[in-house]
């Protein structure tokens, strides 16, 4: 698993990280301006300065002009700088332009007394921080070959009380244009992109988190992206009215602090170190900031709060590195690298902003460019987080797919098992039904045929049977056997075959006796109303009853016609045997006849029905009616 995570993260993260680092390094180390070694560009390091609030430029011979190094803070709210230069020969570099890497407080620029440009500057009602570089065409009409005088009025930044003129350059447009554009990309285009992309991605991820509250990392990442996007607006909004600026400043501080805290929570979560106490403490610390700001403004207290955030950041870096060391997973290592870079960038920015001697000593000239790295490092951090979450998302998708596959397999397997056991149950039920059926028919043979044979044997033995009665008895027994065989022969419950055989046998027999039979047997394979089909046992009862009735017609009725009708009346099985003989006549002699009727009643009861004898005109009608149950409900049986 760990190996898999490594492989997966290496694939996704390593190229991205490398690309980002290359890009950031490229932008950072590209020389923003080239020294005028070849005489094609003029980059003065010093200028004359007069600190004054006067809107009019001081006279050239004003004694207050003092030479001062550029890009150095000078106390005061407003000042004039003076630079003299000879115009270099215009060649392939194009017309002469003036390049200013930034113009924080805003101000005016004059060449030989003519206004070249004016940037809004900080006033009582306006706060300005002009991050953008300027590239100004020096009007050829105002330009002299020698002894050009450049006057620049600078103002303090929004909250500051010091002024500073950045290291300006004068040179051919073709030479300075790329420099200007690189700077513009870094300090303006990228922040705008960050602002927009961070806001969109942050909102999107927060939306995802709202739907899936358990995925805390998504929520933290979305919040971090959103906070950072708002903070980055610092570099995009150059000028704000004073009232708005106060609120915006609060937002800025909140966003900065919030970003650090949320990042810390993210790193803790990723490292598996989330503790409720730590989380609460961090959130409480974050809440203190705005309270301090509202109560005391941007005073020393606020600076202490910000410094505390730096400590939190260092702690976060330590946790990230420690987690990377312990877990050695692609995720933790990537986050650790990004966090360390971020903290380093933050420290670097702090040093540059405060013009720390460290920077001045080790990287002379670098600090003057006022290039801040934190928001690039933060972008990298957000990118790494985003990629990690995307990878996690993809992984969980894979896991879900895998789980689905497993589930499908299992379901299929279970289906197979259920089908098998269902078949087994069905087979058992069939077997059971067949056994039941066999037992019922056995009992039937025993009670019917068996008892008749034993009774006849007994009577024959005591000489109570003449040969005619004996023949009758035996013929009756054979008939019973035939009916049983007919009912049992229909292995596939083929009623047509059962009743066909019966009808065939009796047709010939009745005709031989001079009786014309009429058959109306309508037994559909599937009875109406969803009732249970007639099983062999039911068929046996029915055939016994009809056979007994026909035997009576044959023996006693002296009929010339008999009609047999079997049909369903709704869900009731109906059988009628009607002859045109002499009617029921006198009760049959004690013995056979009476027992015959009792047998028929018995069998009718086994079918769940009733049997009745009606006098027809002429003749007799034997009527059977049996209500058929639906399967599942036990059919009534005797």
């Amino acid at each position, binding site marked *: 698993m760990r190996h898999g995570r490594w492989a997966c993260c290496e694939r996704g993260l390593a190229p991205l990280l490398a690309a980002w680092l290359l890009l950031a390094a490229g932008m950072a180390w590209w020389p923003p301006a080239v020294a005028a070694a070849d005489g094609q560009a003029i980059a003065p390091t010093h200028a004359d300065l007069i600190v004054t609030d006067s809107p009019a430029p001081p006279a050239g011979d004003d004694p207050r002009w003092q030479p001062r190094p550029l890009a150095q803070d000078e106390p005061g709210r407003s000042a004039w700088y003076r630079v003299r230069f000879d115009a270099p020969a215009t060649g392939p570099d194009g017309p002469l332009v003036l390049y200013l890497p930034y113009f924080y407080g805003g101000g005016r620029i004059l060449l030989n007394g003519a206004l070249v440009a004016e940037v809004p500057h900080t006033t009582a009602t306006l706060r300005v921080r002009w991050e953008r570089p300027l590239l100004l065409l020096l009007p050829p009409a105002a330009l002299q070959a020698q002894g050009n005088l450049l006057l620049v009025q600078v103002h303090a930044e929004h909250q500051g009380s010091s002024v500073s003129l950045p290291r300006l350059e004068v040179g051919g447009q073709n030479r300075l244009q790329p420099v200007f554009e690189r700077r513009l990309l870094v300090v303006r285009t990228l922040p705008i992109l960050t602002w927009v992309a961070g806001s969109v991605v942050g909102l999107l991820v927060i939306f995802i988190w709202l739907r899936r509250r358990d995925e805390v990392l998504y929520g933290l990442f979305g919040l971090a992206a959103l906070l950072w996007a708002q903070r980055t607006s610092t570099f995009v909004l150059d000028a704000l009215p004073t009232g708005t600026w106060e609120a915006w400043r609060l937002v800025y501080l909140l966003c900065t602090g919030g970003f650090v805290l949320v990042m810390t929570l993210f790193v803790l979560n990723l490292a598996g170190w989330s503790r409720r106490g730590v989380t609460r403490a961090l959130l409480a610390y974050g809440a203190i900031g705005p309270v301090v700001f509202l109560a005391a403004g941007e005073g020393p207290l606020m600076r202490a709060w910000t410094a505390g955030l730096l400590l939190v950041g260092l702690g976060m870096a330590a946790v990230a590195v420690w987690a990377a060391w312990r877990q050695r997973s692609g995720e933790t290592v990537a986050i650790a690298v990004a966090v360390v870079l971020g903290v380093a960038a933050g420290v670097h920015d702090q040093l540059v902003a405060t013009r720390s001697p460290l920077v001045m000593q080790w990287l002379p000239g670098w600090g003057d460019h006022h290039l801040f790295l934190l928001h690039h490092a933060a972008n990298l951090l957000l990118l790494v987080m985003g990629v990690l979450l995307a990878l996690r998302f993809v992984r969980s998708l894979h896991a879900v797919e895998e789980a689905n596959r497993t589930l499908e397999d299992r379901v299929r397997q279970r289906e197979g098992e259920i089908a098998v056991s269902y078949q087994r149950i069905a087979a058992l039920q069939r077997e059971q039904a067949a056994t039941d059926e066999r037992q019922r028919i056995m009992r039937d043979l025993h009670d019917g045929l068996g008892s008749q044979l034993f009774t006849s044997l007994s009577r024959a033995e005591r000489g109570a049977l003449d040969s005619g009665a004996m023949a009758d008895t035996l*013929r009756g027994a*054979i008939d019973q*056997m*035939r009916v049983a*065989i*007919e009912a049992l*022969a229909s292995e596939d419950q083929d009623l*047509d*075959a059962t*009743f*066909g*055989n*019966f*009808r*065939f*046998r009796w*047709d*010939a027999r009745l*005709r*031989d006796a001079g009786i014309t039979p009429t*058959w109306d*047997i309508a037994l559909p394979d599937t009875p109406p109303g969803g009732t249970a089909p007639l099983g062999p046992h039911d068929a046996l009862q029915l055939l016994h009853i009809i056979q007994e009735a026909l035997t009576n017609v044959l023996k006693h009725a002296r009929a010339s016609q008999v009609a047999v009708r079997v049909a369903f009346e709704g869900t009731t099985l109906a059988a009628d045997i009607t002859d045109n003989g002499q009617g029921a006549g006198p009760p049959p002699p004690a013995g056979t006849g009476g027992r015959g009727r009792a047998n028929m009643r018995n069998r009718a009861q086994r079918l769940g029905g009733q049997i009745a004898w009606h006098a027809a005109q002429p003749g007799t009608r034997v009527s059977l009616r049996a209500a058929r149950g639906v399967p599942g409900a036990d059919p009534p049986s005797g």
Partner: protein
Amino acid sequence: MTDRKPIGVLIVEDEPEFISRFSEAVLGDPQMRLLGAVSTGKAGLALLDAQPPDVLLVDLGLPDISGIDLIRHAARHHPGCDALVVTMFADDTHVISSIEAGATGYLLKDASAARIAAAIHEVREGGSPISPSIARRVLARFRGPAPAATALPAAAATPVPDEPSPLSERETELLRLVAKGFSFDAVAEVLSISPHTVVAHVKNIYRKLAVHSRGEAVHEARQMGLL
């Protein structure tokens, strides 16, 4: 009819009771002549060859050889002889086997003397009795290929499309009606033919069944390399 030569009948039946019953039925009919009544298959075989009868009444459960062998022998060597198999319930599998061996009808064991004589006359006049279960089995036998053909891959590779059903449509229809229990008279009425034609049809069907089963036997024997 009265001028005709009497019908020679041979009875092969192992139960004395039924020998006498059948013999009496034959002897009681002036148009019949009892050629012999024996109780073993071998005796029956000897008599069969010595004096070929017109009608052979044979029980299947003989003590020495199977009645079916007797029927087969008669069908092969004495084609003019009609074999009637004696059965208790007319639904025996044996009845079908007998018909396939060449029997042209069956006789119920408990039939009255009059019915026995009538059956013998019917079969001589070109008719055969049939019961619903026999009709059913015959229908099933001719429906689709023989089971052996589907089981053997070699046979499956050479199906028998040239042998659809040897039964004519009329014969099939007749069998269906009989299978439902219709009497010959009723069948004749439905098909608008005379009852005599019905029984003649049945005899024809039996002959086809015997030929078919013989052809099948030869076919199978070839498949198994016996021929």
